[in-house]
């Protein structure tokens, strides 16, 4: 087990340090998501409608755009020095490497979603944010996991070539479509607009998506590394 945990923790620690070094890029991703939400908010007029049903789509939309920027930078620090190739001389590195990147991306996505949630609460004047958060965290965390699983794997395909940055959203969004729909549709609202419950069918779809793509990613990630 230490064969997994030791490198995993080490890689995660190193990535956190690198993220700290490059905090400017993290901040710009968050800022970008914020801009998206603000621009969309200006564009709609709620009138007499309850704002709560709009909260989830806005949080999700903002973090999707920003998240994709983050995903394409997953292996940013490893590309310049061809570090990934160097890793491969160590046996059994693929699983800790992939999972450390995945965990970091999930963590980033959840953080981003939380920040977007705070912004949305302010912009839409949501009355009981804590209650909303209690209802809403599950689909968002599941969404972050599926999104990061696909994003991390695909960023392994576009790394090292800036012209291919363009390719990442084009290949990732169609694959992600059930997840993109699923997160929003998990919410069921009462007539007043309050979140009533989560739809179990949608939640299980999200779980299925996460399980399928995390496991397939682990299986193919080695192949992606080998073909660099």
């Amino acid at each position, binding site marked *: 087990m230490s064969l997994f945990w030791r490198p995993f923790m080490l890689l995660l620690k190193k990535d956190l340090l690198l993220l700290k070094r490059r905090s400017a890029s993290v901040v710009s991703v968050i800022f970008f998501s914020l801009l998206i939400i603000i621009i969309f908010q200006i564009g709609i007029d709620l009138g007499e409608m309850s704002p709560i049903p709009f909260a989830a789509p806005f949080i999700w939309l903002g973090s999707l755009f920003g998240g994709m920027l983050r995903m394409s930078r997953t292996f940013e620090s490893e590309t310049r020095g061809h570090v990934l190739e160097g890793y491969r001389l160590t046996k059994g590195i693929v699983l800790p490497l992939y999972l450390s990147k995945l965990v970091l991306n999930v963590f980033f996505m959840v953080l981003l979603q939380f920040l977007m949630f705070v912004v949305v609460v302010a912009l839409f004047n949501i009355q009981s944010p804590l209650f909303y958060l209690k209802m809403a965290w599950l689909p968002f965390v599941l969404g972050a996991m599926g999104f990061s699983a696909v994003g991390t794997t695909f960023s392994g*395909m576009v790394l090292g070539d800036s012209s291919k940055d363009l*390719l990442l959203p084009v290949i990732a969004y169609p694959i992600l*479509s*059930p997840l993109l729909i699923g997160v929003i549709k998990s919410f069921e609202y009462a007539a007043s607009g309050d979140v009533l419950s989560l739809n179990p069918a*949608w939640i299980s*779809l999200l779980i299925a998506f996460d399980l399928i793509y995390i496991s397939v990613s682990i299986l193919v990630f080695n192949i992606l590394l080998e*073909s660099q």
Partner: protein
Amino acid sequence: MKKISSKFFLIMPLVVALLLTIAFYMIFIFAPEESTQGAVQRIFYFHVSCAFAMYCGFGLAGIYSVLFLLKRQPHFDHYSHAGASVGFLFCSMVLASGPIWAKPIWGTWWTWDPRLTTTLLIWLIFFACLLLRRFFERDPRGPVYAAVLTLFGVLDIPLIALSVKLWRGVHPAVLGKKSNMPLEMKLTLLATNVTVLVLFFAIFWIRVRLLKLEHKSEMLRFEHQEN
């Protein structure tokens, strides 16, 4: 081997042409006119058959991309590539024939009906897949990445279908009449299905052959440059 394929190359178009003639005869003359929808319903035979061919293509693409990832033989990549591109072709035909049928019946070209949405999303996935191949043309990593994306895409099909079904509730009963179709209609559907499948495999086979030849010519070009 070479002889067989060149003979096949001659015979195959004739067979496809013959089958198509029969199928068109059955669609337009043999099959009775549907009572509520009228003549426009006849597009249904072609539409459904194309959908079968499309799933055939994507299924083949998925199977061969897994084989390619396991064995890394170039010909598996050719099959996977051909499956994806020919499947994409038939998917486009489904998407094109759908609105032509929908406009007079539903009164609109497009609606977010589960099957339409599913097909559109699958179309987008395989479009991305073909785009990726373009991006990585002549790059040895291209086939590997394309295989991974194809695998991800094929795994996505049931998820998309399920999610779209959940999203849209019950499918409108337009296709519900299939079960109590008259025998002539069933026969026509069967004949069209067989014809389109033969057409599919003919195009698939040509595409594979073309990809193999491209691969070979590239190899020869490099050998020539070397010497």
